[in-house]
Structure formats: structure tokens, C-alpha cells
């Protein structure tokens, strides 16, 4: 399998000024993330709020400019691509936003919202545009009549479908989903997830799926990356990672998933304390302040993402000599 997207040592540091005359420091929202996403797969990023997963998704499309590192899309380095070629590349890379309320212009009808990407990138006749709009509305499970509606007239699930339709109308190859279902009711979540799977099969899409909901991730993804404080802690195939998590942080996350069977209760690993601030991340391994297996070298040496077995990687000193 060939990677459609590859990122190398991607960093995004925000300058932070403490107090009026305080020293300048940086908040490390992304701190050296490397990743390869294969054509046709669904790669999920999980992590708590503030782990940098949304920053990662937006940086891939250069909605946020990376501080350093590089992004390759279909083999081309797009890290320093100029504004115009980058703009044109948006026909291949798209994003669906988390908030279905905020991501649609309240003054625009759904039809106009869906026409915008077409009219921006292609010169089509009015009838071609109208046809594409009604087709995409049907694809995402709405009807052409919805084109005349305003966002406030639709439900959350319908709005999110519009968001998906808007991203897909350009027929992209790669789509970032930034928590696409976390603002929706559970029953609607299932519908939207099924829709996403269906679309992926039909249009042979590659997904980067960002979520904090482990059950959603387990359901939809082929591979998972676990992020903590701007760093990738573990990467692996979904089933393997969920059944046998390697990194202590992943273990804690997985143990927090409620078990449907009360007989099969398993030990819950409860993490102490809060996520440290990315403005002032811990030295060494960023997880050492909360890790149950903390060792002396964790306080000073930053663990690198290392290969454990086929397709499985983790950044933890526990696996150094195995």
C-alpha cells in the first residue's frame, strides 16, 4: 500500500507571552508528529482535549501553518506550497468540521453553500451545478428540496450531512473529519458513521478521523494513532491496539471504556491528576507525571516512537530492550 499522506516531524508551536513583561515561551500544540496514511484506509486520531489532534488535522490542510516539519501529499511536498497551488489542492483534500452549527454560513441557503466550492474551482453551467448539488444531497441522505433551506431550519444531523456533502462535492481523495459526530445525538451518530463508511467504499476515499470517542474510533477506523500533549504515543491497527494496548496511556484509555458485560469486569486504570499544560509540558516523556510505570529515565529522556511488531509503534521506555 502506498501512503497518500505522509508527515514528518510536524511541529506547531504557538508563541505565548506570560504576563505583561513576562518571558516569551511557546505552547507546543504539535511536537514532532510523524505519520503515514495509506490510500483507502481510515486512520483515526484519538486523544483528550488539548492533545493537539484538531491542530494536526488542520495543519495537514495548511489551515494552520506548521512551525516545522513537512507534509507530503501523494508524494509532493506541500509544506511550502504557495497560496494558489495550495488553494487548487483543496479539490483533493477536504475537511469536515466538528460544529455543524458554526461551520455553515447562517445567511446562506444550503444550496448556495454547496455551490460555493464548485463555483470556486470549476467553471460549470448553472444546470450542471444544480445537478451536482442535488446529486450530492441525495448521496448524503438529504433531498434536493433541502437546497432551499437555511442552516437554522435543519437539525444537527442534517447540518452535519450538509458539512459532509460540502466536503465531498469536490470529489476529494482525502478527507479529514474533525470530530464529525461528537456534537450529534447517539442515534444520529450511528447514521452518520454508516454514511461515512458507505461513502468511503463508493468513492474510494481516504479518511483521517479525529475523535475522543473510543467506541466510535473502534467502529470506524482501520488504524489508530493515540496522541497526548502534541505527541504521538502509539500507532497500530485498531483491533490489535484495542485488544492489547502497548503504551500505559493507551492502556488507561482503553480500560476506561465501559464494558457491556458486568461479569467480565476488568481492572480500570485511573490516571491521577490533570493533563499538563502544553505551555509547560513535562520534561522527558510528557506522560511521566501520570504514568503508573514511571522510571527514572522517563523524567529526562524523550522516548522515540519505536516499532514493536508488524505495524505497531509506541513511544515508551518500557519497550526499550525488547
Amino acid at each position, binding site marked *: 500500500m502506498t501512503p497518500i499522506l505522509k508527515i514528518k516531524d510536524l511541529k506547531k508551536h504557538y508563541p505565548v507571552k506570560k504576563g505583561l513583561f513576562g518571558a516569551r515561551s511557546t505552547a507546543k500544540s504539535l511536537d514532532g508528529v510523524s505519520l503515514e496514511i495509506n490510500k483507502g484506509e481510515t486512520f483515526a486520531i484519538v486523544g483528550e482535549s488539548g492533545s493537539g489532534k484538531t491542530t494536526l488535522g488542520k495543519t495537514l490542510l495548511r*489551515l494552520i501553518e506548521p512551525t516545522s516539519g513537512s507534509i507530503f501529499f501523494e508524494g509532493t511536498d506541500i509544506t511550502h506550497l504557495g497560496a494558489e497551488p495550495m*488553494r487548487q489542492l*483543496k479539490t483533493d483534500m477536504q475537511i469536515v468540521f466538528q460544529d455543524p452549527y458554526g*461551520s455553515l*454560513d447562517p445567511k446562506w441557503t444550503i444550496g448556495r453553500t454547496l455551490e460555493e*466550492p464548485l463555483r470556486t474551482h470549476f467553471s460549470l453551467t448553472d444546470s450542471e451545478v444544480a445537478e451536482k448539488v442535488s446529486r450530492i444531497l441525495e448521496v448524503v441522505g438529504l433531498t434536493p428540496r433541502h437546497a*432551499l*433551506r437555511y442552516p437554522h*431550519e435543519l437539525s444537527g444531523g442534517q447540518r452535519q450531512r450538509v458539512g459532509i456533502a460540502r466536503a465531498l462535492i469536490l470529489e476529494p481523495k482525502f478527507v479529514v473529519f474533525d470530530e464529525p459526530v461528537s456534537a450529534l445525538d447517539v442515534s444520529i451518530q450511528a447514521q452518520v458513521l454508516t454514511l461515512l463508511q458507505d461513502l468511503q467504499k463508493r468513492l474510494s476515499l481516504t479518511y483521517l478521523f479525529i475523535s475522543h470517542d473510543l467506541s466510535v474510533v473502534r467502529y470506524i477506523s482501520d488504524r489508530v494513532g493515540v496522541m497526548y500533549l502534541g505527541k504521538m504515543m502509539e500507532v497500530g491497527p485498531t483491533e490489535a491496539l484495542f485488544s492489547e494496548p502497548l503504551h500505559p496511556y493507551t492502556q488507561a484509555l482503553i480500560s476506561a471504556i465501559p464494558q457491556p458485560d458486568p461479569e467480565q469486569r476488568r481492572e480500570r486504570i485511573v490516571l491521577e491528576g490533570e493533563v499538563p499544560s502544553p505551555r509547560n509540558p513535562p520534561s522527558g516523556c510528557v506522560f511521566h507525571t501520570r504514568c503508573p510505570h514511571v522510571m527514572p529515565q522517563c523524567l529526562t529522556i524523550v522516548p522515540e516512537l519505536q516499532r514493536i511488531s508488524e505495524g505497531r509503534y509506541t513511544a515508551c521506555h518500557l519497550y526499550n530492550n525488547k
Partner: protein
Amino acid sequence: MNKSRWKSIREQAGKILARKLVLFGLILVLLWVLLALLAPWIAPYGPNEIRTEDKLQSPNLSHWFGTDNFGRDILSRILYGARVTVWTGIVSIGIACSVGIPLGAIAGFFGGKLGNVIMRVMDTLLAFPSLILAMALAASIGPGLTGALLAVGIVAIPEFARLMYGQTVVIKEKEFIEAGRALGVRNKAILFKHVLPNAFAPLIVQITLALGSAVLTTSSLSFIGLGVRPPTAEWGAMISYGRGYIISGEWWMTVFPGIAIASTIFGFILLGDGLRDAFDPHGRNSKTKFK
């Protein structure tokens, strides 16, 4: 324009007009506009028709609002004066909008050094009391209607720029703007098609209120002789002629133009306040709709 759009406009309009004071304000404003348009047909005399034999008459049946020291009919002069007022309002606020709104939008949207320079210039203009600045501008452009129009317009620019700047800074952080960027929409299109329409409501309120203050500033300039040239009928200028006669008891020369100015401004302020309440983002499409 489709059905649901019309529905939402009708609902908005209904909400605005449901307040009696707003309706009253709207009626006042429309009344003056109508009177201004119809002045040549409804005014009983010409605005500059001098009849010395009728001079300084108190209000009576043939001269409802009395006559001035040249025997000119006050009512007719007020009606023709409304034309000057409506004209100065439209032109000066037109100038203010067409300069101030793009400047504020550019400063807010692109920010950086350019934005900083624009907004600091606006702050400088805003630091002067508006009447003093208008006087200085009108005096340097030269007295006359054009000078007054330009002066009133320029004085109102910073308010529009600052309002649009604030709106743009807020709107550009909204997710649908980022969505536009993600779709590859050009900056120009984002600015004109997304930012501007979403800033429309507060702009309308500001335009209404600015029209009121434009009437006041124009009248003030004319009062001190920097506005229209005599003998043009203009409310501020009429008060200026009449002020020497207050002491000798010819009150109608000042009171009626004064009422005209006050009622126009009052109308605009009532209307503006009402629009502000109706457009309040917290009341928008949420309270009334899903009640």
C-alpha cells in the same frame, strides 16, 4: 429569494414593527422623506418668495407657521429644507459607508501592519469631537453644501470603520470562514460574500443612528454659517436667522425649524434603537422561532 427567505424577512419586519416606539420613529422618518419629496407640490409658497408686506407674521391661516423677516413662509421653507436634510443625510452617510466599511473590513480581515495603520488613523479622527472636526473640515473645504456634505461624511467614516473592524474580527474567527478557506475560496469572496452579509444587522443600526447625527451636524454647520449658503432653505440656517428675533417675540422663526430638526433626529434614534433590539444576536431566530 425563495419562500423561506421571505418568511424570515417578514418575521423580522414584524418583530421590529411590533414595538410602538419603533413604528413611531419609522413613521416620523418616512413622513419627512415624503414631505421632502413632495415639497414642490405641497408647499403653499416658494421657499425664497419674498413678500415684505407679510414680514414677521405670527402663525395664521395663510401662513401656518408664520413668516420671517423677509416675509418668506416658514412652512414652505421647512418643507424645502427637508429636501436639503434628506439629501445631505443620504450623501454624507453614503460617503461614510463607502469609505469606512471597506477600510474597517480590510483592517479587520487582513490585520497586520496595514490594519494597524488604518485603525490608528481612524482613532485619530475619532479623538476629535465630531462637530469641531466637521467645522474644521467644512471651513477648509469652503462653506457651501458640498463642503458640509463632505465634512459630515468624513466625520462619520471612523465610526463605520471601527464598527466594521469589530464585526470582521469576530466573524472571521467563525468556523464557516475557516470552512470557506478549507474549500479554497478566495479571500475576496470570503470577505464580500461571507463577512459583509453577516455584519449587515449592526451596520443598518449604525447607518440609522448616523443619519440622525448627520442631520444634527449639517444643521449645526449651517447655523454657524459653514453649511448651505443663504438664501437656501435649511433648518439650521433658518434657526440662525431667527435667533435675533427670539428676544423681540417672533418665536416661530426658530421654534418650527427646531421642531423639524428634533423630530427627524428623534425618529432616526427611535428607529435605530428598535432595529438594534430586533437584530440583537441573542434574540435572533432563537427566542421567537423555537418558542
